[in-house]
């Protein structure tokens, strides 16, 4: 069992409950999408899986290890095998893209390599390859502050791809991209996961994308799992229940916007 949560609960500092007694297990090599309304706890769930957040109760097992029973050093080594794509890419504005991508392997490099990389990027072809898969090969030496939101998200993804983790967790990885780009990037991620037998868990806002690319869908609402089903079993009724009181993204063509004619005097 690659990822296993047993009755995990997380409470925020202000008292709000982010996750309530969540039970989850995901096998190695699976590709899972997590969907749900805003505030359902998708980010908290992914952070718990990434061992970024410690659950108040319950147990977290990642890659066969009970994450919070390890020593700090062992946990750091475990984290090098887990890749988390953040919703807001944590990239320093003045850093160059090449250094930001190469930083992905900091958990695996020794002292000498890490130091040398600061002065001169050591693996330019590797960084370029990671960026090229996301169509950013020409931005290798640009500064992060010169990129748009969508480009920055792709750099964050490239960094995690370069890290080559065994478990890939993605928190809204395509939220800042236009629909075509989002579709393309998601297929790159899924293809990478298939080719390298990587476990992929993604949270998504766009339900169509989730249904199109993933074989297993988990619906989260108010910190609890509403359903955990293969894609075929997810129907309109379940989605409505999940997103109750939320406008569901229409899967048919959007209604043409009504135009108001302002009479000119």
């Amino acid at each position, binding site marked *: 069992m690659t990822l296993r949560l047993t009755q995990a609960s997380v409470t925020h500092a202000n008292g709000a409950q982010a996750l309530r007694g969540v039970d989850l297990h995901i096998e190695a090599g699976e590709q899972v999408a997590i969907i749900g309304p805003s505030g359902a706890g998708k980010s908290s769930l992914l952070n718990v899986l990434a061992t970024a957040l410690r659950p108040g109760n319950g147990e977290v097992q990642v890659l066969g290890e009970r994450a919070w029973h390890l020593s700090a050093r062992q946990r750091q080594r475990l984290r090098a095998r887990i890749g988390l794509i953040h919703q807001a890419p944590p990239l320093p504005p003045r850093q160059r893209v090449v250094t930001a991508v190469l930083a992905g392997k900091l958990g695996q490099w020794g002292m000498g390599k890490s130091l040398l990389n600061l*002065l*001169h990027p050591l693996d330019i072809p590797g960084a370029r390859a990671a960026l090229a898969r996301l169509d950013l090969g020409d931005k290798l030496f640009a500064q992060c502050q010169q990129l748009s939101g969508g480009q920055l998200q792709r750099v964050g993804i490239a960094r995690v791809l370069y890290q080559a983790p065994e478990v890939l967790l993605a928190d809204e990885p395509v939220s800042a991209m236009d629909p075509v780009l989002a579709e393309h990037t998601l297929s790159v991620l899924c293809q990478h996961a298939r080719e390298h037998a990587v476990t992929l868990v993604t949270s998504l806002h766009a339900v169509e994308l989730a249904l199109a690319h993933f074989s297993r869908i988990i619906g989260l609402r108010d910190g609890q799992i509403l359903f955990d089903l293969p894609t075929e079993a997810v129907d309109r009724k379940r989605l409505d229940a999940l997103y109750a009181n939320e406008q569901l993204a229409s899967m048919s063509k959007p209604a043409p916007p009504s135009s108001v004619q302002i009479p000119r005097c």
Partner: protein
Amino acid sequence: MLKHDVRDPAARPRLLLGLLAVALLWPGIHFSELDLSVLLASDSQSEIGRFVAAFWPPAHDEAFIELLLQATLQTIAIATAGMALALLLAVPASLLASRALSLSAAYRAGRPGLWGQWLRWPVRGLLILLRSVPEIVWALLFVRAVGLGPTAGVLAIAITYSGMLGKVYAEIFESVDQRPAHALMQAGSGRLAAFCYGILPNVVAELLSYTVYRWECAIRASVVMGFVGAGGLGQQMDLSLRMFAGGEVASLLLTFLVLVLLADQLSRLLRWRLA
């Protein structure tokens, strides 16, 4: 396919910068004769060790405490008297140098005429000159001219700080809205009257705040100038250091730190009250 560059474009500039830094470091170390080992060398360590050990206990015999209090009062007096003299020179100089009093500016939407600019340069130049020479150099010169003691310190502060205060005052006058003064001048009032009614009310708070801040700096400067013989705590510290009296140096240092702290608090209080 576009041909990508395989080299890091930042590699060459970084290498050059690195080489430059190393190239400058060598003569830098040579000229500054930097040698951190003196702090750790065995013979000086025992000397330093003994000196630092002598810091405790700080000297607190009655005669020395009295000397300490006198020196402290002297330092405060030097700073206050020096500031008073500095103000005597700075206030007229700032009025002369400031474009806020320019009559021609009142008629040209804020920019003084040619004569208005040129005639002010010498005064501004003088103020800049007065403040460019560090006060301790003036102190050294005055000690040679009028002898050891607090007079040299007072004069040194008076000269340097008149330059500082004058220049900053002039700039403060120019930084507020000039239109009230201009309106008065256009209505026929004299420069000084226009200044007093139009500009002064707006700047009083800032002037006082800066002056009190400078007084606090003057106290620190008085101590420093004492090292060249201008009286106060600094002169005492210099004497005690020469005599290797560690305990006395410790007491003097502590007194200095307390004095600076008190002066800081007093200046905050005054700035809050008067501003």
